[in-house]
């Protein structure tokens, strides 16, 4: 169910604009205080007042997680071919081009080898700024190649997810990426490889219902929206108020679906520690 996808997209777009405007100061959606933008950014894009975790792109995520200059990109040459010649109110080809110009990336994922506190890892980060981090053929293929690379090299795999789900514009082929990535994880598992899945705000739909929930260890940033269906779809279906904190990281940990809720400042050391315990 990808109903979530653009619902979160429309939900998110204004938030992103108001969350990270171009000004020197911004009003924090967490505590409603005026925050000095530079200060928030140097604080790993976390509000210094209330610990609100701002959404960040893949490049920033890699800067935060990888040891300086250790990231070596892989599989960067992949781009979508618009296999269905999909057109809604706007052709998919045009959307892709606009997103590529906006982000300077070919699609919604960056992958490569890196060191995290000196531990070698295969690092894969989805990028929310590119079509809501949605998974089409390119994201699916990049994730699968990353898993296969980690399997062959015996390197721990770290995937940081944030996504609206499967990409509707690639239709059934997007759906098949769920099976493809999950099957690759079965082989990593057979080979005794370690997969640390990090869930960030938001992780929903077909990404959650495939590789993101298949981590040997699943970490989540505080208060991230994590779920299969989006809150609005659920609300429309059951016609009830949703409970406080529903589908947030802490709720998922209470429900047994997430192993640890980890603040962004601790993510590097937590990943390194798990690799020490569980890596080969």
């Amino acid at each position, binding site marked *: 169910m990808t109903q979530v996808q653009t619902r979160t997209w429309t939900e998110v777009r204004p938030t992103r604009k108001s969350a990270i405007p171009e000004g020197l100061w911004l009003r924090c959606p967490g505590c409603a205080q005026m925050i000095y933008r530079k200060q928030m950014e140097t604080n790993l894009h976390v509000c210094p007042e209330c610990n609100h975790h701002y959404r960040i792109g893949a490049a920033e995520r890699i800067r935060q997680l990888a040891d300086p200059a250790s990231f070596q990109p892989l599989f960067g040459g992949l781009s979508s071919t618009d296999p269905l010649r999909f057109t809604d109110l706007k052709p998919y080809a045009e959307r892709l081009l606009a997103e590529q110009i906006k982000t300077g990336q070919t699609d919604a994922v960056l992958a490569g080898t890196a060191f995290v506190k000196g531990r070698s890892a295969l690092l894969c980060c989805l990028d929310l700024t590119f079509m809501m981090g949605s998974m089409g053929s390119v994201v699916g293929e990049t994730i699968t190649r990353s898993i296969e690379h980690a399997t062959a090299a015996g390197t721990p795999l770290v995937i940081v997810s944030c996504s609206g789900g499967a990409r509707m514009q690639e239709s059934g082929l997007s759906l098949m990426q*769920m099976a493809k990535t999950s099957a690759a994880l079965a082989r990593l598992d057979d080979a005794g490889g370690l997969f640390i899945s990090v869930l960030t705000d938001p992780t929903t739909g077909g990404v959650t219902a495939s590789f993101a929930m298949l981590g040997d260890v699943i970490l989540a940033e505080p208060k991230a929206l994590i779920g299969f269906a*989006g809150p609005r779809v659920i609300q429309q279906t059951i016609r009830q108020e949703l409970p406080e904190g529903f589908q947030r990281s802490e709720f998922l940990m209470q429900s047994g679906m997430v192993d640890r809720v980890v603040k962004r400042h601790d993510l590097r050391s937590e990943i390194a520690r798990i690799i020490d315990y569980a890596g080969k």
Partner: protein
Amino acid sequence: MATFYQLDFEKPLRDIEHQIDATEARLKELRSGEGTPGTPPFVDPPDVSGAPTAAQLTRDLEALREQHGRTLRDLYSHLSPWNVVRVARHPDRPQGRDFISALCREFCELHGDRRFGDDPAIVTGFGRIDSIKCLVVAHQKGKKTSEKLACHFGCAHPEGYRKALKNMQLAEKFGVPIVTLVDTPGAYPGIGAEQRGQAEAIAVNLREMSRLRTPIVSVVIGEGGSGGALGIAVADRVGMLAHAWYTVISPEGCAAILWKQANEQTNTAAARALRLTARDNLELGIIDAVIPEPVGGAHRDPPAAVALLREWIVAQLGELRSRPIDELVAARYERFRRLGSFAEAEAV
């Protein structure tokens, strides 16, 4: 001709059926007159009123029936994608349990997921298709209102997916092949479903089905909605009934998001854009075969639909069971591994 219609594109058929009904009624009148004792043997009265003769009516009836057959074939060979979706949702279309009871000589249902509860939206159990022992896993939408509500209209909960997996692993343990019948608008979006890990349940099924060491055949028999469908459809062979649909989201969901509203027009556009028909899925390499349905759809002739489905399943199982299991599991991986479409630039 007492078929229940909800499909507006079948209006030409309905018009012909009204004509057939009228003709039949008149013929019956004439013939009952003929059979009444004491009346003279039936003779065509002189044609003064313009009233049709029995001979004429019989000829008309034949022509009407011929026209009806032709129109039916025509309509169903050119269904628009949105109309395919509506046929796939036809209330008289056979569902998971209908196919199970017609396909299997006996069916030994297994209810338990050993975790939370018995989800009626996914039915699992042992049965023989022809003489082949199988584990059958099928979505069930429900027929009567009470059953529909219990099944959440075919939208399964995590316990449904976990029941399916637990029993598929049982089948694997004893080398029993698996047949899954997919018919769901999508997995259920609700509080309990999320709390109990809907996403995790589906994800685990995808991972585990990819490495189950027993043959798996899946057929989308009606609706193939998103991850809820795929959650029981990672298979060696995937087929679709001719008027089923299968894609990443329902046309209404897609229309609501990408066209900003769901109505007849945008649903039609979304259904077309999504390439959700059996033929489209075959062209995209997502399925391996389109399984024909009787003329006018499975709901017009369920026994014929069952026979066509049985024939295909038995052929697949026969072939898959003869292959070494390592080879089979490797081929299943490759089957899904190659799906996707992208361009690759030279590394710089």
